[in-house]
C-alpha cells in the first residue's frame, strides 16, 4: 500500500480492507451457521402448527415462518393469524 493511501485512510476514517473483510465474514458466517435447510423449516412449521392449534384456532394457510437477518443477528419469526381461542376444555388435548 502506498503511503499516500495510508494517509488518506487515516484522514477519511475509511475502514481498512482487512477490517471490512473481517466484518463481512463474521456476518455471513453467522447467517450461514443459522441457515436451516428447507425441509427442516417445513417440518418445524408443521410441528409449531400442531402445538399452537391445541390452544388456538388458527389460519393455517396464512402462517408465516421466516428466518430474518437484521442488525447483525438472525431471528426466527412466526406470524400466526388467530381465528379464535379454543375453550379450555378442548385446549391441551392434542388433536
Amino acid at each position, binding site marked *: *500500500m502506498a503511503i499516500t493511501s495510508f494517509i488518506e485512510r487515516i484522514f477519511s476514517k475509511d475502514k*481498512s*480492507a*482487512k*477490517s471490512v*473483510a*473481517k466484518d463481512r465474514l*463474521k456476518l455471513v458466517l453467522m447467517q*450461514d*451457521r443459522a441457515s436451516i435447510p428447507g425441509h427442516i423449516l417445513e417440518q418445524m412449521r408443521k410441528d409449531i402448527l400442531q402445538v399452537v392449534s391445541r390452544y388456538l384456532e388458527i389460519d393455517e394457510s396464512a402462517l408465516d415462518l421466516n428466518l430474518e437477518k437484521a442488525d447483525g443477528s438472525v431471528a426466527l419469526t412466526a406470524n400466526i393469524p388467530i381465528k379464535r381461542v379454543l375453550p379450555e376444555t378442548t385446549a391441551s388435548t392434542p388433536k
Partner: protein
Amino acid sequence: MSETSRVIVVTSGKGGVGKTTTTANVGMALAGLGEKVALMDADIGLRNLDLALGLENRIVYDIVDVVEGRAKLRQALIRDKRNQNLALLPAAQTRDKSAVTPAQMKQVITDLKEEGFTFILIDCPAGIEQGFVNATAGANEAIVVTNPEMASVRDADRIIGLLEAQDLRDPMLIVNRLRVKMVKSMEMLGVEDVQEVLGSGVHLLGIVPDDESIITSANRGEPASLNLESLAGQAYRNIALRLKGEQVPFMDLEEKTGFMDKLRKIFSARK
C-alpha cells in the same frame, strides 16, 4: 501393523487454496523427520498429488486398480527415491468419485496401516460431495487449509461443520498463502482474524507464507519442504514437528521476510 498410525485428511471445501501442495509438503517434511508416510490422492478423476511430488511418470497402478483388485496395494504404491520413507498412492485419472465407496476407502487405509505407515495423509478433493465423504471416511484427524481470504474462510467454516458431522472434531488449521506485508498494512485478513472468525474449535497448526519458492518448486516437481533454506520449507517443517507433538513457536514472518528478501537479492545479484 503400526498401532500408532495417524490418518489425517487434508481438506478445505474451496478449491485452489493449496490442499494438494500442503499434503505433498507436509508429507515430505514428515518423511524427512523419519516418519513412514503414505500420501493418498483421494481426488479421483482429477489426479494432481503426483505432480506436486514430481512422481507423475512413475504411476503404473492407482487406487481404483487396488480397490477393484487389478493390483496389490504394494504394486500401486510409489516409493519416493529422494526419501524412501515417503510413498504415494495415486488417484485414478480416467474414473470419477463414484468409482470408490467409503467402505473401500476404509479398507485401503487399514491395508496401509498394515504396511507400517505411521502417517497416512489423505488429499481430499474440493467440494462437499461424494469425494469429501470418501476422503473423510477413514480419517481420524483433519487438517483444514484456508487462505486469508473471505470465500476460502467461509468454505472452511462450512467444512468444519461437515467434519464434525463425520465425527472429526476440533480440526487443525493451516493458514496458507499469507502475505505478511498486506496484513501489516491492514489490507489482508491476518491469522488472528481467521482464527477469531472460525472460533475456538480449530487449532492453529501452521502458517505458510505466500512464497514464490512454492511455485518454482512445484514446477520442478520438488516439494518446497525439501529446501529448508526457504521460508515455506521451514513453515512445512514446523508443521510436521507440531504434528509430531513438538511445541514449535510460530515463525516471525515479518522479520524473516525481510531477511530472506535480502538474501534473495544477494543471490540474484550474483547470477
